[in-house]
């Protein structure tokens, strides 16, 4: 009797144990697998460094001068010729390089006299000593600026351009009143298409007249833009 009871107890215990194992076994998959690839997939951006700046021309009471006179001005001390230089610095790891342009913006309308527009002649000269890997071209024709904004020059800094530690001059911009258009007459004669600056007949000297000063008020800004990838633009310094 005791043995039967013992067996019954033993069988009961085994039965419960099997039941527990069966219940627990339902909760776990019999197979599982988890692997993360060893190689990383990466995207990295490159480097684009570009800065540009220009000096500012500020000429008041300018008198007309000859183009040949303006062409040889090499600094901003000439009283009749505005002079400014544009400089850039850049390097990039992108194969496309850095495209940039120089624009005249906010071009004022200027004055008129006797129905004729009074505007200075602006000339743009590309530097003859550009760093290796830097190219600049200008399609501006010597003459008045057109519209309210005009591209003065376009350039490119290639991926392999010589390293530039400082900004280098790439453009020289001059502005003057062309004497063939705005003639200072030594007599108070009216000459076709020419405008007298002012003649003090009493003292025989040329003096700026209020009218001339008013009419010669003309301004524009120089803006430098770097264009990467054809459609994107990076901020550039504005003179």
């Amino acid at each position, binding site marked *: 009797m005791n043995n039967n009871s013992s067996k019954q107890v033993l069988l009961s215990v085994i039965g419960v144990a099997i039941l527990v194992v069966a219940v627990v076994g339902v909760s776990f998959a019999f*197979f599982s*697998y988890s692997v993360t*690839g*060893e190689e990383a*997939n*990466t995207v990295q951006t490159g480097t*684009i460094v570009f800065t540009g700046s220009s000096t500012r021309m500020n000429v008041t009471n300018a008198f007309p001068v000859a183009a040949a006179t303006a062409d040889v001005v090499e600094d901003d001390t000439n009283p009749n010729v505005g002079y400014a230089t544009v400089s850039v610095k850049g390097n990039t*790891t992108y194969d496309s390089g850095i495209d940039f342009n120089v624009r005249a913006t906010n071009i004022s309308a200027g004055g008129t006299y006797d129905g004729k527009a009074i505007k200075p002649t602006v000339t743009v000269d590309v530097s003859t000593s550009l760093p290796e890997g830097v190219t600049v071209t200008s399609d501006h024709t010597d003459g008045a600026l057109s519209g309210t904004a005009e591209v003065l020059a376009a350039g490119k800094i290639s991926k392999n351009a010589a390293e530039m530690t400082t900004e280098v001059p790439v453009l020289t911009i001059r502005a003057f009143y062309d004497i063939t258009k705005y003639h200072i007459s030594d007599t108070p004669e009216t000459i076709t298409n020419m405008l007298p600056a002012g003649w003090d007949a009493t003292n025989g000297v040329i003096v700026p007249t209020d009218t001339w000063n008013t009419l010669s008020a003309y301004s524009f800004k120089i803006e430098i833009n770097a264009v990467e990838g054809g459609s994107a*633009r*990076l901020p550039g310094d504005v003179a």
Partner: protein
Amino acid sequence: MENNVKKGTILSVIGVILVILIVVSVSYAFFSYTKTGETSNQISTGEISFKFIDGNEINLTNAFPISTAEGVALTGENNVCTFVIKGNIAKGDIDYTITAVEGDSSSDPTKTKRFYDEGIFMYIESDEVEGVSFTPTEGYDEGKAIGSLPLVLGTGTVSARTETSRTFTVKMWIDDSVVKIKDREENTDTTDSIYTSGEYMSLYYSIKIKVEANA
């Protein structure tokens, strides 16, 4: 008196014998029968295998924002990631999940800043294979922003009874619908512009592919 003692003794012996017989008889049937069935009853494990085989990895350098269409169309070495899932199971299915998880920091010492999750798009594609199904997470079969990691790119099932492979291609790029360079002329920060040119430089982004399976 002697007769009583004898009777008692005999009864005791008989009693003991009976007890012995009873005890012994518990262990033996008076009739026994044994026959072994002719057909075996058996249980055995089935074959199950599953492998993730890593292939080409993406290694885009000097990356610039491109359109979603251009990103989906990327091809060639270093531009796409490929890997293979191979498996079979004798009965039932193996369920698997493909996930993009954060990768290692860049080995380039100049690339110290991680790019934005929102600016990186991913795309996954895989040709149909009988026995190995796959359903991409919505949007990632057309190109979609990662948003955040880890990212489940899709799930599938291996039901093939013999070993079967399925190849996957994953693409990753900086999408110009999200990552915009400040427009110089407009000179404004658009609300969806997430960086300026200064912040764009020398950034990296890295993911790894993780595959998990259960049956």
